[in-house]
């Protein structure tokens, strides 16, 4: 995975909504597609487009925000369904960071597994950033320092330490875990001996 260090003066797109659930981020009907098809076009599809495909005028489709790398939203972003496709849609659209006051747990974990930074700020800071990005101000993100720069102000953001390290290094969990294979095998054997009921009874 590509490491995430910083973003310098990138375009940021405002999405002034709370509780943007993963059903909104990618409607279920698109999830049959293989990832190779690219999920960017599905992002927030039913909020962005009328049934005949005309844009409803969200900032996401405004040429002024073309090439946006950062999305700013309100609280409880990515709640609901565990679909990782919601993150694929954001990443394939071009986003590397979402700034919001809070995130759905599963979404945030999925985001980090795909190199997308979930940056938490307080409600007031989110509102300021929504206003400034709507006015066209660009945003810089420094993950090592955990700061957002916008319109002359430096705003701190929160991200779990473990996730920060993982993103900074572009680490892949599976490689890391495979280095513990022997410990896992020993643990499983001991558990099966101590708690034989924990194994499903073999029904043949």
């Amino acid at each position, binding site marked *: 995975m590509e490491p995430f260090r910083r973003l310098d003066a990138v375009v940021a797109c405002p999405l002034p*909504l*709370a*509780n943007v*659930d993963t*059903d*909104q981020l990618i*409607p*279920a*009907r698109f*999830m*049959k597609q*293989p*990832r190779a098809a690219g999920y960017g076009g599905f992002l927030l599809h*039913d*909020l962005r487009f009328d*049934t005949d495909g005309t844009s409803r005028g969200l900032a996401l489709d405004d040429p002024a925000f073309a090439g946006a790398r950062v999305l700013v939203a*309100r*609280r*409880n972003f990515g*709640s*609901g*369904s*565990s*679909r*990782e*496709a919601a*993150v694929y849609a954001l990443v394939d659209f071009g986003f590397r960071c979402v700034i919001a006051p*809070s995130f*759905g*747990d*599963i979404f945030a*974990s*999925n985001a980090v*597994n*795909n190199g997308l930074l979930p940056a938490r700020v307080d*409600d007031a800071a989110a509102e300021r950033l929504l206003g400034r990005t709507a006015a066209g101000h660009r945003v810089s993100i420094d993950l090592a320092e955990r700061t957002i720069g916008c319109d002359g102000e430096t705003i701190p953001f929160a991200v*779990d*330490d*473990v996730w920060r*390290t993982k993103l900074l290094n572009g680490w892949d*969990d*599976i490689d890391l*875990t*495979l280095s*513990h*294979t022997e*410990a*896992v095998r020993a*643990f*499983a054997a001991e*558990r099966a001996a101590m*708690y*034989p*009921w*924990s*194994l*499903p*009874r*073999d*029904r043949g």
Partner: protein
Amino acid sequence: MTRSTTTRSTTPPPRTLFDKLWDSHAVVTREDGQTLLFVDRHFLHEGSHHAFAQLAARGAAVARPDLTFAVADHYVPTRGRPAIADDSVRAMVDRLAGNTAVHGIRLFGLDDPRQGIVHVVGPEQGLTLPGLVTVCGDSHTSTHGAFGTFAFGIGASEVAHVLITQTIWQRRPKRMRIRIDGTPAPGVGAKDMALTWIARLGADGAQGHAIEYAGSAVTGLSMEGRLTLCNLSIEGGGRCGMVAPDATTIAFLRGRPFAPEGAAFDRAAADWLALASDADAAFDTEVSFAGEEIVPVVTWGTSPQDALPIDAAVPDPDRIADPARASHVRDALAYMDLVPGRPLAEVAIDRVFIGSCTNSRIEDLRAAAAVLAGRSARVPGLVSPGSSLVKQQAEQEGLDRVFVAAGLEWRDSGCSMCVGMNGDQVPSGERCASTTNRNFKNRQGLGARTHLMSPAMVAAAAVAGRLADVRPLLAGRI
């Protein structure tokens, strides 16, 4: 010469149910607190195709196919089986069959008499047991916590990780106890309890927390009720939701096909009963409710937290002080086509749906049938039992005939109209009284308007043709 001996206390600190589950599954704990947990059960469904693609890209094998179980539920049709008319839907069901066959994973497929919704099948088969760590690439995996298992939803990359390693990295969440004491009125149940706490704490009220449900109203619930309560934990943002194993849990599990049997079962039961939180264990957050204050609830908006008692009125955004909340309410009412101040019980509906991992178990179907017996539904609707075995049992009890006589369609089992992936959808602009878990915009179909409520309340809405209080309809029946 005197000699002093120091006796060190060997009493371990009191622990919660969650702490006990966590501690007994920690393989590696890093300095930064990140912990590698062993996974006892991994459930898969059609959505696993992204994870299998990651496995294929690595050329990796499945570490423990014996602990991995797959069920076809998200895309399966609820009529006309085994044919699947839509090619892209059939491809999803076939892909699951292909992937599980290649990796030697047991599949409860479309043609298996045990097929059903993964969160119904796991408990029904005795695959879900107390004391386990259980994961599935589905947010409603919290359901299984009803048995006192740490069960949570994961994303596709994590599914691939579990397939390859049988473990998952987690940070220890905070612990929250939601206590509901007392006796709810007849016709009031687990769904009302869940929507009541979510309305009070908010859709992110339990974010970062492992929830334990406690109190006499909770322990008084059947396993079906506990499954509904734990299922909805994710709608309040919880990492998981659990109920400590007790006599009800053990009675439910005895004799289940994959559960231990004989002496092994008795040994297991003793271990399971020891999982309950220690009396003086500390929780990071405690919330309590009185059972008597829980009444039949319906949602009016586009988030599960938008719930009110059936005798309330549609909220008025102009009377809400918090501007962000007022803006959400305004937006939700526009989508739902509702007018502030109008009594909820006057809102006419177009159809009903009884089903989903939240409310499709035998007890849910009995509760709906108790209201519908001898009555007619004024609107069309579907009933999709939670599993093929629930369907069979309901038919033995004659419940299918009650639904059909009332004018509803009796279908096969699957996720169906909760998520609409199989084509069972609410037409645009229509209003559906639904036993499901999410009233998100477009969830049940593009432009669909969803009102969440209990199976008994959906049955009442079907009979009235509008949102309705079930309590008068139950007089003399329960």
